[in-house]
């Protein structure tokens, strides 16, 4: 029986997708499948790759006649998959198929679990690094039951948010039971994914219908950032502009929520704000007293910028939007501070249950190899059950 479908939507980044798939197929487990949804302009590279792999665990959905929106490419995977659980990653990311074992063990202790997520790992592919990059790895390895009400407050009320809500239960770098995805489809408009910004849209929907949430402190996947990835847009203004304009061109639905005057181009917080607003408006959900937390998150979004110019531009953009949205008084809560200090070196070592380290560790050349290297420093999945 297929426990897990690892879904990888991809478009024109075949090399990265192949790297992840090749590595996953090297795992000797037989209880997972990979569904590669190719939305590339050239169908040949992945078709050839899939033929060469000749592995029943790999299913390839070839490109359709015309380019699909990201949402539509995500949407078509679930009907083509068969796993009891579903997880999505980007084509420059990595996910460990041993997640099947984590699911098996988790079900023993939390029988009603239907959505899980885990600690985060980040990897910038070496060809786009401009110098040493530091990152963090959580050191915990416990399975933690999470109350849905707490997550509701974190997502919809932006409680204790950074520049984004501290809730990540969804299919993207998380895993959700197929039955839950079907609940989502039947509950909301007969679609699995409703908004062009698919990951946060799915988080909203997952949280509304989930019954058992479990957070595994140990990372099970890697968020990769390659030259063409959205994540790179967070570092480079011009890249961000270009990526967003392509995204807009290829999407198939309205992105902006009504009466929410935050230009999407301002950054991640504005984008997530639109997704959540759009979802609430669509579902007729009205809540109060979330705005203050959102405004603070906007300030943190400005603070993520390393260039003073970009910081000031964002600050001014958010100010204008906040003023238009909730009036001048609301600006009292918006106090972004330019915090980047190139003269202060970053911390390396162990602090607050996280290891801070140089991403070049072990000279990893791919997200998969990076995960393997770090896997030698993380709690072994094989021992998880023995610790219950």
């Amino acid at each position: 029986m297929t426990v897990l479908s690892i879904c990888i939507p991809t478009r024109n980044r075949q090399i990265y997708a192949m790297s992840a798939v090749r590595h996953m197929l090297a795992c000797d487990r037989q209880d997972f499948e990979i569904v590669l949804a190719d939305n590339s302009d050239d169908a040949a590279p992945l078709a050839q790759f899939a033929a060469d792999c000749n592995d029943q665990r790999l299913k390839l959905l070839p490109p359709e006649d015309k380019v699909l929106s990201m949402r539509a490419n995500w949407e078509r995977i679930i009907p083509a998959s068969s796993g009891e659980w579903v997880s999505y990653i980007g084509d420059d990311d990595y996910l460990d198929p041993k997640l099947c074992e984590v699911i098996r063990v988790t079900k023993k202790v939390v029988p009603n679990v239907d959505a899980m997520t885990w600690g985060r790992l980040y990897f910038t592919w070496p060809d786009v690094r401009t110098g040493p990059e530091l990152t963090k790895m959580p050191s915990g390895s416990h399975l933690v039951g999470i109350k849905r009400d707490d997550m509701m407050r974190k997502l919809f009320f932006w409680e204790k948010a950074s520049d984004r809500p501290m809730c990540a239960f969804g299919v993207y770098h998380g895993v959700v039971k197929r039955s839950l995805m079907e609940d989502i489809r039947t509950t909301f408009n007969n679609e699995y994914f409703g908004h062009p910004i698919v990951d946060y849209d799915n988080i909203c929907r997952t949280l509304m219908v989930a019954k058992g949430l479990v957070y595994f402190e140990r990372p099970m996947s890697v968020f990769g950032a390659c030259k063409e990835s959205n994540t790179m847009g967070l570092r480079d203004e011009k890249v961000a502009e270009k990526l967003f304009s392509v995204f807009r061109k290829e999407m198939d639905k309205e992105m902006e929520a009504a009466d929410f005057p935050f230009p999407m181009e301002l950054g991640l917080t504005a984008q997530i704000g639109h997704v959540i607003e759009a979802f609430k408006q669509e579902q007729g959900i009205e809540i109060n007293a979330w705005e203050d937390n959102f405004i603070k998150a906007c300030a943190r979004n400005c603070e993520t910028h390393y260039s003073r110019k970009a910081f000031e531009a964002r600050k001014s953009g958010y100010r204008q939007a906040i003023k238009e949205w909730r009036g001048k008084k609301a600006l009292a809560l918006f106090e972004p501070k330019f915090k980047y200090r190139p003269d202060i070196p970053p911390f390396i070592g162990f602090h607050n249950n996280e290891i801070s380290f140089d991403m070049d560790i072990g000279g990893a050349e791919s997200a998969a190899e990076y995960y393997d290297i770090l896997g030698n420093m993380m709690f072994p999945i094989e021992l998880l059950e023995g610790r219950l």
Partner: protein
Amino acid sequence: MVYFTICIPTRNRQRYCIEAIKAIAESEETDFEVIVADNSDEPAILDDYFRTELDDSRFRLLPPQATVLSMVDNWERTMPEVRGRWVCMIGDDDHIDASVLQLIRRYEREQPELEVVAWSRISYNWPDNRAIATLATIPLGHVTHIPDRKTVKDKLYRWSERESRPMGGFGIYHGAVRRSLMERIKRRYSDRYFEHPTVDFDNTCKVVTEAKAMVFCQRPFSVLGACVASNSASTQSFETMQKLVDDFYRDLGNGQQIQEDDFPFSPKLPGLAIFSSIAATTWWFCRKYGVDNAGFQENFVHSAIKECQTSRTVEDYKLKVQGLRLGFEAFEGGVWASQFNPPETFTPPPTENQVCGVVKDTLYVREAGLEKVTTPAEFYRFAEALLMPVKHVVSARKEFAA
């Protein structure tokens, strides 16, 4: 005169030794020297390497003497050759980052009386030494400590921590000792730099008594390598340990022996070579030189129980218990024997050396999974990604971005 001397005594492990030399030679530091004291049966290998491959004036080779030296004598003969103000010994299957000399300079500026610098060590098993599952360890801290002398003495001479090893570290082995202190040790202790066959603890015992000032840095600067032929490898198998003990006793010849008359815990007992050698050394030192170690016996009983509990199998456990019980019965008229009560039943840990991750600021790494890493030096470079950069430790920087 150079600032820092690294000594590498070696015997019949040329392959590892050459790797150690190559790795240290990559250092861009200039104010240090390396003395390789070869005690091998075949002198040609290192001699050829020095003559034909290693073109580095920082390195010197002391060729083997006419007869094989004991380990302690091979260490002893390196000291007169040392030109450095500070000196450190490492094993031939180890690694050291020569930039540690920058740290010693900093500490010496801050404490002119300083005579010993200790740092954390990384441990690493060579690929040929993984008969069982193994884990490398990387201490992740970077803070400097000025230790409390009384506490250090209690931990070393009295075994006050009641662990299976007393506190080590403050000595010449994977630490730096000022040469003037080594000269003082020679004057005060039997006219030798190194006396007891358990050389590292012999030196630590003396340094802890004699050093005017001492300092410890949490950041590791060296790697304790364990190849298949090393003493530490013996912890993986009783048979390996027995062979090493036999070789060790043979090489001692007529020199200083491990005292067994008033401390009847023989390193020849199965599985107890390392535990007993260290205990015999601290005991011997305190007795011979009149150092107060009151309380040792009671602490040592607990340490012995701990040592038994590090066993890998029930059979190993029983053998250790049996050996130590015999020792306690013969030790000081058997007065401590009634306190040696290890649990009747022993369950070996089901996941020995498999749980990687962070425990108490030390990262445990499944080294077998790092295919590109094959030597202690490569492992050190790997670990550097997780360690505070040397320049920040040397500059005593305290402020870091989150």
